[in-house]
């Protein structure tokens, strides 16, 4: 179980709760002149990856390592503007049914082979569409190399510009070398353990259970970068050990809540460390509650709405997450600057109202209880354990008997997404700013895929919702997309197949002399070529 204690009581959390800026925002504005050299030693708040690169995704750990070696066509900055990486331009045709991608010249793979349009065509047709971004690129019908540095992607429908650029800048958009993968099994390719990319870092050595050492790629297309000579990513399973490593000077930077919350405050007090919640705009996390629409009681929308009134989300944010979370107002996190709306049905904490609504829904108290439900709290985060225990008490306060189960990771996945064996489930979801398909697939009919995790497990299926999401996926007018996104959020909040209990904050901790970090919307998944050491 990944400890998320480090989400709980940090200074960062207190500061966020109080509306104060984190000390970390002084982490190094990109104004000072960068210095070359040094070894940047990094970690994250989780475990070692199973492989340095996992083609279909593989979770945060392989994502963290692979993105230092492999690059994407674009990146998204913290102001939600797309910036060029391997592509210099991505331009839609007038009908938005095709896009022309101009590639950066003079880019080479780590093994010396040139990066060309053929690589991008291979990725689009043989990697992104069938493996990493199937749902997002279901409209992709073709990819052709117009010339060695130009690619044309064609679609069978209109594709919004922000949507496509999000895919190209997102987790599924890494570009792998055609010459090492073409004609070979993607999932078991030896290059997955020692990836060859175009990125600023070349893998030198991976010692399983300890670290991966990367060295500067001298022929990197962005001359002068990366600034550091070496990047070492180390893994400690124990957050307290990571704290000790920071203090002993053996760690420079840690992403995604690397150390226990109280330690952040203590380390910051020494003035040698800073922390920030910046750099996670395109990878927001929520703690979600899901109601199983296949079960007699929870398929009743009135029951779902009533139960939401029994849950005190302020308490969850303040006590369970120690302030490092925000009470959610709907399914989409409030950090989503582009699509989030607060203008959705709200369910304020009111036990009496919850009881009245349950009475009205046809479930009056019979003795001490109204009905019994099974609650599965996915056991992969420590907070989910507490959340499950709290929810049991909260629901029992309105006369609902709760059979609580907090299984381990594999069992949770099977019960929630494989067997649909729950009435109410507590899970976690993370996704980018773009809503389609990461957020929408929890409520669309095509999101129901038995055994596929982090999809529609609640069974919600509504043709109106499917049409709404289809429009959101194909409408090319940004203003209309925003309106559709609002309608989407309002429908989800009213029907409540799933919603967020809290929006979770993620924190990066770094030594004060680590400069220019956290300047992308998904810092953990960026190449870190611009990070430098002020020593």
């Amino acid at each position, binding site marked *: 179980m990944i400890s998320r204690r480090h989400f709980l009581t940090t200074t960062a959390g207190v500061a966020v709760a109080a509306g104060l800026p984190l000390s970390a925002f002084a982490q190094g504005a990109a104004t000072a002149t960068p210095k070359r050299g040094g*070894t940047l030693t990094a970690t994250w708040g989780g*475990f*070692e990856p*199973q*492989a340095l690169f*996992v*083609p*279909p*995704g*593989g*979770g945060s750990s392989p994502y963290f390592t692979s993105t230092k070696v492999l690059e994407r066509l674009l990146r998204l900055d913290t102001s939600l503007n797309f910036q060029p990486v391997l592509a210099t331009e991505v331009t839609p045709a007038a009908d938005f049914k095709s896009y022309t991608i101009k590639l950066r010249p003079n880019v080479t793979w780590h093994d010396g082979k040139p990066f060309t349009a053929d690589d991008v065509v291979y990725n689009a047709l043989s990697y992104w569409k*069938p*493996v990493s971004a*199937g*749902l997002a690129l279901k409209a992709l019908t073709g990819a052709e190399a117009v010339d060695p540095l130009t690619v044309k992607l064609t679609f069978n429908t209109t594709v919004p510009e922000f949507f496509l650029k999000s895919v190209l800048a997102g987790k599924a958009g890494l570009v792998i070398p055609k010459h090492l993968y073409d004609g070979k099994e993607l*999932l*078991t*390719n*030896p290059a997955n*353990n020692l990836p060859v990319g175009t990125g600023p870092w070349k893998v*030198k*050595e991976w*010692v*399983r*259970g*300890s*670290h991966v*050492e990367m060295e500067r790629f001298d022929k990197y297309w962005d001359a002068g970068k990366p600034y550091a000579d*070496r990047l*070492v990513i*180390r*893994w*400690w*399973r*124990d957050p*307290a*050990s990571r704290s*000790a*490593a920071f203090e*002993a000077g*053996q760690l420079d930077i840690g992403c995604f809540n690397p150390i226990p919350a109280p330690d952040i405050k203590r380390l910051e007090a020494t003035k040698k460390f800073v922390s920030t919640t910046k750099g996670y705009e395109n990878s927001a996390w929520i703690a979600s509650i899901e109601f199983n629409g296949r079960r007699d009681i929870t398929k009743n929308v009135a029951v779902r709405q009533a139960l939401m009134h029994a849950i005190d989300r302020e308490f969850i944010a303040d006590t369970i997450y120690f302030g490092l979370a925000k009470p959610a107002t709907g399914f989409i996190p409030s950090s989503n600057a582009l699509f989030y709306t607060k203008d959705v049905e709200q369910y304020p904490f009111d036990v009496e109202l919850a009881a009245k609504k349950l009475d009205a829904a046809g479930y009056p108290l019979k003795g001490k209880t109204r009905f019994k439900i099974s609650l599965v709290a996915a056991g992969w985060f420590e907070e989910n354990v507490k959340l499950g225990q709290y929810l049991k008490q909260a629901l029992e306060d309105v006369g609902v008997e709760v059979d609580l189960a907090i*299984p*381990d*990771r*594999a*069992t*949770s*996945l*099977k*019960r929630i*997404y*494989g067997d649909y064996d729950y009435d109410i489930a507590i899970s976690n979801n993370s996704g980018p700013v773009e809503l389609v398909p990461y957020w929408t*697939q929890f409520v669309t009919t095509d*999101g129901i*895929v038995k*055994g*596929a*995790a*982090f*999809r529609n497990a609640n069974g919600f299926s509504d043709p109106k919702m499917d049409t709404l999401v289809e429009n959101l996926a194909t409408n090319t007018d940004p203003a209309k997309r925003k309106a559709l996104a609002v309608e989407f959020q309002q429908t989800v909040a009213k029907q409540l197949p799933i919603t967020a209990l809290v929006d979770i904050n993620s924190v990066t901790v770094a030594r004060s002399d680590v400069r220019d970090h956290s300047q992308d919307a998904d810092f953990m998944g960026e190449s870190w070529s611009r990070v430098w050491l002020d020593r």
Partner: protein
Amino acid sequence: MRRILLRRFAQIIPLILGVIVLNFALIQMSPGSFLDVMTAEQQVSDPAMIERMRVLYGMDKPVVVQLLKYIWSVMTLDFGYSYRQNETVLAVIGQALPATVILMLASIAIALLIGVLAGVIAAVKVNTIWDNLISVGAVFFFAAPTFWLGIMLMIVFSVRLGWLPVGGMRDIGVDHGVFGDALDVMRHLALPALSLGLFYAAMYTRVMRASMLEVFRHDFVRTARAKGLSGAQVVLRHVFRNALLPVVTLLGLQLGTVLGGSVVIETVFSWPGIGSLMLDSVMSRNYPVVLGVLVLSSLIVAVANALVDIAYFRLDPRIRAR
């Protein structure tokens, strides 16, 4: 002795078979499968892709067929393929095993050295301040959780004093030469080995002390003293050797638990051994690796116990006489 050893090694075959069948059954009975974890981690939602992975992992075949196939593979020294790590199981274990063996041997050496020495002193100085201090120390280190002890040692020796590294097995990216590298590994080994070793040292201290006091009461010790041997000669030549037998027994039994204990210490010190691999494999239901580790560790324990038998043979003439 050859007969004893042959009998011991013959017992290994049914032991390994039992380990495979029992653990295979346990993994199959656990809810959630390797496929569930892999599809979730890899965010696979395409049913065709899920089916492709099921076939790739061999999970499309009946469980009994999977088991028989695995047993046959092990008999041909093929421990299978770990799709999670994208390498053969032997390669995955082979990378982690040396670190765990080094940690095991170092912690056992520390435990024996400190435990036996402290036990002898406590027995010789029974009911003195030395005995009391050693007893309190033994109780403390036995009761202290190894992860806590590890973190405390880390804070003192790595964070405060800056003498030793916080984790890992060697300095990254630095070539110290053969001798220098060995010293570097020892420097990294000190804290994890001490954390693990002190727990077992506490146990050996108590057993050694009790065993020494027991042997002190025997007639041959009185005879030795009557013959005019000095106190040190009595202790070293007569009492110590006889008192060592229970410690040797304990050592054989504990080799298996040291492997288990290393899971925690490897986690704290980021020691690249079997412990973290095993933990990750159990959590992800990666049964080829789980079974591979269990089979190999059973082999290690079985061989170690055979070696303990040999030690018995050397230490106790009565066994030789039988």
